[in-house]
């Protein structure tokens, strides 16, 4: 009896952990895009096939070892070996290969809507939106916004080392190489927020190199892009005004750009609309004042190897003013 209870407890502890992988913002099993839906269907079909095959093979083994021992004619055995060992797997693999190959051109189809370019940096994402006919991009970072029900074209490259771009809920992954441009296209179907992750080891903070992908209906996306093209909002409170002064006097603008101000650095992420993003430090922290203070005070403590120096010489007041300014950049 006691053993039963333990088994049940064990199962009840294990199951949520296993099932948690089936949903959520970063799961291939919860597809929200055309390509991911195809991949997940393929997975389920293959899993079902594998389960059927597993039972069939074990059933066969029980049959010849226990039920019908020594009664198979050599003709039958020959048919089983040739049919089950050569013809059947060849046809099954041939069909699976054909289905997958047939889908590849669609997955690699050129995007017709939004065009963007994503550059993998250590350890964050430089994002450029190129609206039709634009001569200069709308620059952003660490978050990707895509319109729903439209295939977006995404150019990919990297700064110093190889990274890989993957939003499991939307589609497959593509590597990003320094000095070379690769491409992919994604067609999200359901508005929502989906997590992406660098999937090629790129240094000590590789695991902290993530991003949110926000999928919006087309009209909301258009409005969002118009807002992104605007320069930064002026500080809306006294605290934010003091924060802006700290930002400029501390030299943050040498690395970061805040369009509409003197800050025009291009080394680090563009902060023009930082406060409008859903996460901070490439998917590592939530976009809150506390997190901003923590990040600015000592970025390396959050993200080992990050190039941003620690600003732990600033007072608590200065840090919270700075956070108020940054959070107000919507």
């Amino acid at each position, binding site marked *: 009896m006691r053993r039963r209870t333990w088994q049940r407890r064990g199962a009840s502890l294990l199951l949520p952990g296993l099932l948690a992988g089936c949903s959520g913002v970063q799961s291939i099993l919860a597809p929200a895009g055309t390509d991911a839906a195809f991949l997940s269907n393929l997975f389920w079909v293959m899993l079902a096939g594998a389960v059927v095959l597993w039972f069939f093979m074990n059933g066969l083994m029980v049959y010849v070892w226990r039920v019908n021992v020594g009664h198979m004619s050599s003709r039958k055995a020959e048919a089983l070996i040739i049919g089950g060992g*050569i013809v059947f797997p*060849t046809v099954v*693999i*041939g069909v699976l*290969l*054909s289905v997958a*190959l*047939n889908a*590849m*051109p669609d997955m*690699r189809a*050129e995007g017709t809507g939004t065009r963007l370019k994503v550059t993998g940096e250590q350890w964050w994402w430089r994002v450029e939106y190129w609206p039709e006919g634009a001569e200069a991009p709308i620059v952003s970072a660490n978050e990707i916004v895509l319109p729903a029900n439209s295939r977006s074209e995404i150019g990919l490259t990297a700064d110093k080392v190889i990274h890989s771009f993957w939003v499991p809920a939307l589609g497959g992954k593509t590597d990003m190489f320094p000095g070379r441009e690769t491409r992919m296209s994604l067609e999200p179907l359901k508005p929502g927020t989906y997590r992406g992750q660098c999937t090629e080891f790129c240094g000590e903070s590789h695991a902290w190199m993530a991003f949110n992908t926000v999928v919006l209906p087309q009209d909301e996306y258009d409005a969002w892009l118009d807002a992104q093209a605007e320069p930064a909002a002026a500080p809306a409170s006294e605290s934010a005004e003091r924060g802006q002064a700290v930002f400029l006097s501390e030299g943050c603008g040498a690395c970061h750009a805040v369009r509409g101000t003197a800050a025009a650095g291009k080394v680090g992420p563009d902060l023009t609309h930082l406060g409008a993003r859903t996460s901070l430090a490439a998917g590592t922290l939530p976009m809150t004042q506390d997190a901003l203070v923590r990040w600015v005070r000592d970025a390396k403590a959050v993200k080992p190897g990050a190039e941003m120096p620690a600003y732990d010489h600033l007072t608590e007041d200065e840090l919270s003013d700075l956070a108020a300014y940054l959070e107000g950049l919507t």
Partner: protein
Amino acid sequence: MSVFGIERSRSLWHLILAPTIWAIHFCVTYGMTAIWCERAPAASGDLRLWILIVTAVALAMILGVAWRAWRQWDYTDDYDYEHDGPTIEDRREFLGHAGFLLAVVSVIGVIYVALPAAFVGSCG
């Protein structure tokens, strides 16, 4: 020296010819695709035609090998799978049997290698 119409010194070839044709077909189609898509990506239609031709030639050659290996195995003579005796006939039939099976695998391999060209229409 000739045994049952097939020269003894040549019987070993049936074992390795089919996989060799498969390997060459693999290198030729992949190499051709890499060079073609780098130099003339627009003309991918011609490339597909060439892959079809190379594949047809490879399959014809492997089927030829398979036929000869099948005859060397001489299965329909005695319908036996056992050739582990220390005789010339057993050795010959074993090599033919193995060569025939390798030819079957090579046919499957060549078709799978060429399959992407049937579905993926362009170099992009």
